[in-house]
Every structure is written in structure tokens, then in C-alpha cells.
């Protein structure tokens, strides 16, 4: 059997691999540093103990002292491989122990050294001296510390905290309250030194190391001296990670508001409050937390403000004029929009008022706002819309508008301007040159005087008169009483006439009887003349007619032609007594005998005549 390689070549390959293998660094480094050398009793600071290239069996004993309280303790390891030249790669292990300490007393304190035990060998760090004051130490000492050099244990964790806070969010870390270190509220401002009218953003956070179930109620602070606009008002809790004094917290944004101070001075924002439920389901626990109060130094606007400047005119603004039509017919309205847009308190600014010549009637405007907050800054546009109605034909100019404002970013006053706008008003289809009386075409009459008309003053005298004599009341005029009484008089007259007529009618009946009686007596007088004559028939005819006529008048009914019996009954019915009825019968029978029987003696005629007269004369008694 034949061998395919040599043993020497294999040995060279192994040596080559060994030559290129990484080498472990063998120099151990061990030290500790504090991020601050001057702290307050209310402050926390970081102590970092670093071990470089410690073997696996190395044991680190961190410093312990009764003068300091360990708030937090964490450990991180880092392995780095470095290649240099053609040599092997060098591997370095770095282990950092990070402690968050808070001094328990004031004074010049010493953090004892940390100790490293490696295979029976002991290494110590240098002690660290810290000067501790009561309360909080000054900001400057903290900023002067080596804090930026400290490693962030969560530097590799994804976090959006900075993005959500915005570019102007305050970087100041909150102070962890002693009693409520696991759950506390924190109000922050993006700045605390501003000008009047400049935006300050107030944010209210919950810092929590426990599970939150819900935020039941939030009471925002009193904002006296501020104009407030809501920027964010989350309806759901969403957390971010944030390290406070080295302690990781979950932060929840509760409210964010834009505040615009309306007066200079030191303004105070009182503490917000919230009721928060922690835990889940039956393990829930409701707590009440109060945030920190804040102070804002508000500077007055600098001197040298242009005319028309107001404390609300702060920010960065652009002014424009939008005219719907610059050539219109008389009677057609024109819409003019004054647009002010930019960054600042949109709802509190007052765009310049549109004015125009008297020939352009400018009606009261309507104002609309549109807020478009961006990166926690209030910005948007305010549009004031005017309706302009030309009153005459001609060319009229809407003057330029100016809006002075203070720009806090440049700390200078600026003026936003528009250009004048000319409206050409032409006659409409009817050809009228004005909406009122006919007036000549005018060119820009901005300076013409107003004709002020008031409702007071004496009304003028009447130009024409209707003359009237002093009037007597209608009821006092003579005809009135007459006219009122006339119907009554007329009615009475009619009634009176009726009575008279009745009476007259009665009296006529009686008179008729008398007339008939008189006629009968005349017949008897005629018969008296015939008594001695030869014609006896004529005598008796006259006597009979006279008697019957008399009886007709007395009875009131014609009696001629009746039989003697019927005549007797009629007379009896009329109340004639028997003796008189007998005389009537005697006379009538005598007349019949005288006319047909031939009795012509004068004595007999006299007797009949006397009997007839006796009937008539004794009647009615």
C-alpha cells in the first residue's frame, strides 16, 4: 500500500495555525471612577468599577460604605478583538460594574477601594473622595463630571424616547423622589427662560418601574399667566425606556401642552396630579401622585417695538392677501382674505384689519384657524375673510397691510407686509355707476369725507298745509242730536198717526149715521110738503124712504127689502124696544096702505108723519 503524504508537512500546518490564533492579553487593569466629585445629599451619582482582562476565576468585591446607599447595581461585559500588523488578534475583556450611589450624609466622604481577587492575588483600586453637600449640588459640578464617559447599559437597546420628546425637549433628568421611587409623576418644560408670547412646552410623564394598568384621572396644573394649547393628549398608554440616575424606567406621556406666557415675570406652574392604577386584575392598586411644580422666567419684549406691536405677536409669521377678483362689476362682491401663517400662538394673534376707501364697503369678517403642530411646536394659519362690496365704479386700492412681530429665534422685531391691491369696478349690465344716487365715476376716494347722519334733531316744517277751521266735535254739531233723535221721533209719529187714523175711522162711522139721519129728516121734511098735495103715493114713498134710511143709519146695515118680520127681528137684535118697533111697523104699513090702498086723507097723512118723526126723535135715548 502506498502512502499519500508526509508527516513533516502536517507539523508545519499545525504551527502555522498556532501562529495565527488570537492571543489573550495578559495585563489586568482594575480601577474605579465616580462621575461627580461634588454631590448633594439629595443627588445620586455613578461609581463605575472597571476590570480589564480579568481571568474567569477573578472575583470582584465592590466598595461598601455606610456613608453611601446603593440605589442600583448593574454589570456589563465587553470583549474586543484587535488586529494589528501581521500578528495575531488581541482579545480584551472589559467588565464594568456600575453602581448608583446616594450619600447618606454631608461632608468629605471617601468611597473605599474595590478589591479584585485573582488566583490568590489581591488587587485594589484607589479610593474615591467625594465632597457631599446638603440638598442638591450645583448643576455646574455635575456638568463638569466625567459623566459622558460612562457607559450606558441600554445603549444598544432600541429607544424612541428622544424622538418623542422632540428636538427641544429638556434633557434634564428628573429627581427620583425618596418615597415613590418606583412610580412618580414628572412635569418638564422644554425651556424655562422665554419671552412673552414665546412657546414653552409642558410635558407630564409617569415614570414607573412597576406595571401600570391605567391612568384614571389627570389634573393639569393651573396655568395662570399662560395661554394654553394642547399638543398631545394620548388616549392610550405607550411606554418608552429612560434611564434616571442609572435606573431604567418606563416613561408614559400623559399630556403635552404648548404654553404662551402673556405677561412678563416669574410665572409658576403648579403641580399636576394623577390617579394611577398599577398591577393587573385583582392585584390592582390605585395610587395618587403629585408632580413637581415649575417656574418659568418670562422676559418682556425688548424695547424698540414697531407701531402696532402686541405681546401676542411673537413667533415667525408671514402675511399675505388673497383677493378673489380684482376686476368686478358694480354690485358684485369681492372676497378678500388676510392670511397670517407661521409659528406661534395662532389663535391669539390679530391680523391687521382690512380697510378701504368709502367706495368699497367692507363687511365684518369671519375668522378661521388651522393648527398644524409640528415637533411639539404650535404653528398654522389664521385667515380673516372679508366681503367687500363696491359702491361705485372706478379703480380703488386696498392699502398694504403690515404685521409687526418679534422673532425670539433672532431676538429681533420683524414686519410682515402685503402689497396694495387695486380693484377695478366696472359698470354692470344696467350701466349704473353707483348703487345709490347717480354720481360720477370716482377714482380712489379714500380721503373723501364721511357724511355723518344721525337720527336726532328737529324734523322740518311741513311744506304744504291742509287748512281746517277749528273743529267742533261731531257730537256737538247741531245735526247730530237731531239725527240721533229723528228715528225716535219718527217712530213716535208713526205710532201717533196710527192712533189718529183709528180714531178717525171710528168717528166716520158715527158721522155716516148722522148724515143718514139728516137725510132721513130731510125726506120727512119733503113729505111734509107733500102732505096736502094730491099725490099721496109720493108722500108715502118719501116717508118710507126717510124712515128706512134713518133705520139703516142707526142699525148700521141696509134694511130695505126685508119682510116686516125680518125687519122686526133685526131691530130687536139692534136693541130697539118693542114700542118703537111697533111704531116702525105702523108707519111702514100705513105707507104701504097709502100707496096701494088709496088712503089719502090729510089727517091720516099727518098721523103717519108724526109717527115717523116720533120714531126718529126718540132714537138712542
Amino acid at each position, binding site marked *: 500500500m502506498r502512502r499519500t503524504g508526509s508527516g513533516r508537512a502536517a507539523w508545519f500546518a499545525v504551527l502555522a495555525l498556532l501562529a495565527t490564533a488570537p492571543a489573550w492579553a495578559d495585563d489586568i487593569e482594575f480601577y474605579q471612577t465616580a462621575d461627580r466629585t461634588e454631590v448633594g445629599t439629595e443627588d445620586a451619582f455613578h461609581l463605575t468599577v472597571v476590570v480589564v482582562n480579568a481571568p474567569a476565576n477573578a472575583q470582584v468585591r465592590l466598595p461598601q460604605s455606610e456613608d453611601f446607599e446603593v440605589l442600583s447595581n448593574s454589570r456589563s461585559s465587553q470583549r474586543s478583538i484587535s488586529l494589528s500588523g501581521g500578528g495575531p488578534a488581541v482579545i480584551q475583556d472589559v467588565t464594568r460594574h456600575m453602581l448608583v450611589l446616594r450619600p447618606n450624609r454631608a461632608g468629605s466622604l471617601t468611597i473605599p477601594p474595590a478589591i479584585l481577587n485573582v488566583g490568590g492575588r489581591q488587587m485594589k483600586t484607589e479610593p474615591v473622595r467625594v465632597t457631599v453637600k446638603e440638598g442638591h449640588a450645583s448643576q455646574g459640578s455635575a456638568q463638569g463630571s466625567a459623566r459622558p464617559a460612562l457607559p450606558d447599559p441600554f445603549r444598544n437597546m432600541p429607544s424612541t424616547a428622544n424622538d418623542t420628546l422632540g428636538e427641544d425637549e429638556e434633557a434634564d433628568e428628573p429627581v427620583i423622589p425618596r418615597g415613590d421611587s418606583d412610580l412618580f409623576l414628572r412635569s418638564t418644560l422644554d425651556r424655562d427662560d422665554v419671552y412673552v408670547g414665546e412657546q414653552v412646552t409642558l410635558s407630564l410623564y409617569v415614570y414607573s418601574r412597576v406595571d401600570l394598568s391605567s391612568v384614571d384621572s389627570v389634573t393639569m396644573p393651573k396655568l395662570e399667566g399662560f395661554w394654553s394649547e394642547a399638543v398631545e393628549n394620548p388616549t392610550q398608554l405607550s411606554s418608552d425606556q429612560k434611564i434616571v440616575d442609572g435606573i431604567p424606567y418606563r416613561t408614559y406621556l400623559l399630556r403635552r401642552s404648548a404654553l404662551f406666557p402673556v405677561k412678563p415675570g416669574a410665572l409658576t406652574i403648579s403641580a399636576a396630579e394623577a390617579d394611577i392604577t398599577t398591577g393587573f386584575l385583582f392585584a390592582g392598586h390605585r395610587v395618587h401622585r403629585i408632580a413637581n411644580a415649575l417656574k418659568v422666567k418670562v422676559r418682556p419684549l425688548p424695547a424698540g417695538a414697531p407701531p402696532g406691536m402686541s405681546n401676542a405677536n411673537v413667533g415667525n409669521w408671514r402675511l399675505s392677501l388673497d383677493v378673489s377678483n380684482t376686476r368686478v362689476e358694480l354690485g358684485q362682491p369681492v372676497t378678500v382674505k388676510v392670511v397670517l401663517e407661521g409659528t406661534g400662538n395662532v389663535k391669539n394673534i390679530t391680523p391687521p384689519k382690512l380697510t378701504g376707501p368709502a367706495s368699497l364697503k367692507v363687511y365684518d369678517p369671519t375668522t378661521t384657524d388651522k393648527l398644524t403642530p409640528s415637533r411639539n411646536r404650535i404653528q398654522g394659519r389664521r385667515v380673516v375673510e372679508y366681503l367687500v362690496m363696491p359702491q361705485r365704479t372706478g379703480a380703488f386700492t386696498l392699502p398694504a397691510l403690515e404685521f409687526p412681530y418679534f422673532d425670539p429665534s433672532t431676538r429681533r422685531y420683524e414686519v410682515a407686509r402685503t402689497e396694495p391691491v387695486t380693484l377695478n369696478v366696472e359698470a354692470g349690465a344696467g350701466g349704473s355707476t353707483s348703487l345709490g344716487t347717480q354720481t360720477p365715476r370716482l377714482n380712489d376716494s379714500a380721503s373723501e369725507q364721511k357724511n355723518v347722519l344721525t337720527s336726532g334733531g328737529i324734523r322740518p*316744517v311741513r311744506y304744504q298745509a291742509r287748512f281746517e277751521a277749528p273743529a267742533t266735535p261731531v257730537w256737538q254739531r247741531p245735526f247730530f242730536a237731531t239725527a240721533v233723535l229723528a228715528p225716535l221721533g219718527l217712530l213716535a209719529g208713526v205710532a201717533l198717526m196710527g192712533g189718529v187714523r183709528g180714531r178717525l175711522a171710528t168717528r166716520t162711522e158715527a158721522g155716516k149715521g148722522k148724515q143718514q139721519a139728516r137725510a132721513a129728516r130731510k125726506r120727512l121734511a119733503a113729505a111734509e110738503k107733500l102732505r096736502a098735495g094730491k099725490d099721496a103715493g109720493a108722500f108715502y114713498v118719501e116717508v118710507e124712504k126717510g124712515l128706512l134710511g134713518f133705520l139703516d143709519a142707526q142699525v148700521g146695515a141696509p134694511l130695505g127689502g126685508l119682510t116686516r118680520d125680518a125687519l122686526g127681528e133685526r131691530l130687536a137684535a139692534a136693541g130697539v124696544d118693542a114700542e118703537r118697533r111697533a111704531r116702525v111697523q105702523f108707519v111702514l104699513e100705513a105707507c104701504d096702505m097709502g100707496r096701494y090702498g088709496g088712503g089719502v086723507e090729510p089727517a091720516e097723512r099727518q098721523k103717519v108723519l108724526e109717527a115717523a118723526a116720533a120714531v126718529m126723535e126718540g132714537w138712542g135715548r
Partner: protein
Amino acid sequence: MSTETTQGYYSPDEAQALFQQANEAYAREDYTAAREGYDKLLAHGFGGPDVLYNLGTTHLAHGDLGRAVLSLERARKQGGKAPDLESNLALARARQVDKVVGATADEPFLSRVTAATDGAMVSWVFLGAWLVGFALVLARRAWPWARGTVTAVLAGLCLTAAVPAGALLAAHVWVHQNVHEAVIVSPTVAARELPRDGARSLFEVHAGLKVQTLDESGRFVRIRLPNGLEGWAERDGVADI
């Protein structure tokens, strides 16, 4: 333009000419001449609401508040209610010195009724309803064709309408006979407790104030203010409307 009064001192054309002259005098603020012109017309029977209104306006412009109110009230009483009259009357009242405290709407009912109605109109309505009603009654008696139901109903309606019209007319007559309105024309008039010069002065009234006159005794007339205050004032300082 019409003229109802044709008899008298002026012809209608002369009256119109005089009226225009007075107006022109007013226009050039010669109030004395204007007032004289209107007074001449009134004195010769050429009156009416227009002349009285112009006279009152002239007095108002001249500053004679009492006679201004007097003339304007007379114009209104003669049926000359118009916006210009009411405006000038309001202006005159606004210039009055006196402010009657406690004056309420407690004016007697009859006075309010008569103020709200036109006496002449009421008179004519009553007279018409009365005459027509009786005419229909008489017609029913006189002519058989008029004895239908329609005639009876019309007669009843007319006579029924004549009843409230007659009552209203009676109210006018009563107010006319018993309520006498007047205006203070003197700049200042003292209202005294008794109708004599030495009597105690109760209060003072000034030109333009409208009052009621209740009684008269010698040179004095008893006046009543709208709030019920009464006193005796010199007759010369008070003019009946």
C-alpha cells in the same frame, strides 16, 4: 293741497301764500316772522294740524318749549298724528326741565279708551248704525216687501252695533266735558296750596309740562300732574290744549 275753509279773512290762495311765507321765514331762521305768519292763519280760521305742527316746530326751534309742546299737542289732538310730529314732540319733552317721578300708566280707563280711538270716527259709526237700524225698522212697518228676515237681521245688527258705539261715544263726550288737558307755557309756574297769591307754594313746574286742569278760581286754575300732584297755578301760565 286742498282747502276746506273758504270763508273768512283770507282767500285760499292768500292763505297758502302766507303759509309759504312763514315757511320761508322759518327756513332763514327768522322764527319770529314764521310764528307770526302761522298765528295769523290760526287767528283767521285757517288752522289744522299742519299749521299747528309748523307753529310748534317754530317754537321748538326758537326755544319756546311751552308753546312748542302746546302747538304740537293741539296738532295731535286735531288728528295730526304723524312721525314728524311725534319726533318733535319727543324732542320737546326731552328738553323739559321737569321730570315727573312716579308717573305711571294709571290714567283713567275712559281716558285711555278715548285716547286710543278717534272721536269723530266713533260718532259717525254710531250715527250710521243708529240711522240705518231705525230705517230698516220703519221700512218693515211701511212696506210689505221689507218684512223679510233679512231686513230684521240687518236691523238687529245695526242696532246692536250702535250700542257699543254709543257707549264709546258717551266716553268721548264724558272725557271731553270733564278731562281738560293743558300745557305749562310760562318758564316757571308755582303751584300753590290755595288759589291766592300768598298761599304756600307746593312745587314748581316749568314750560312744556303737560297737566290736567281740574278747577278754576279767579286768576288761578287747579292743575294735576301725571303722578297725581295737585296745586293752584296762575291761569296765565297754563294753556289748554
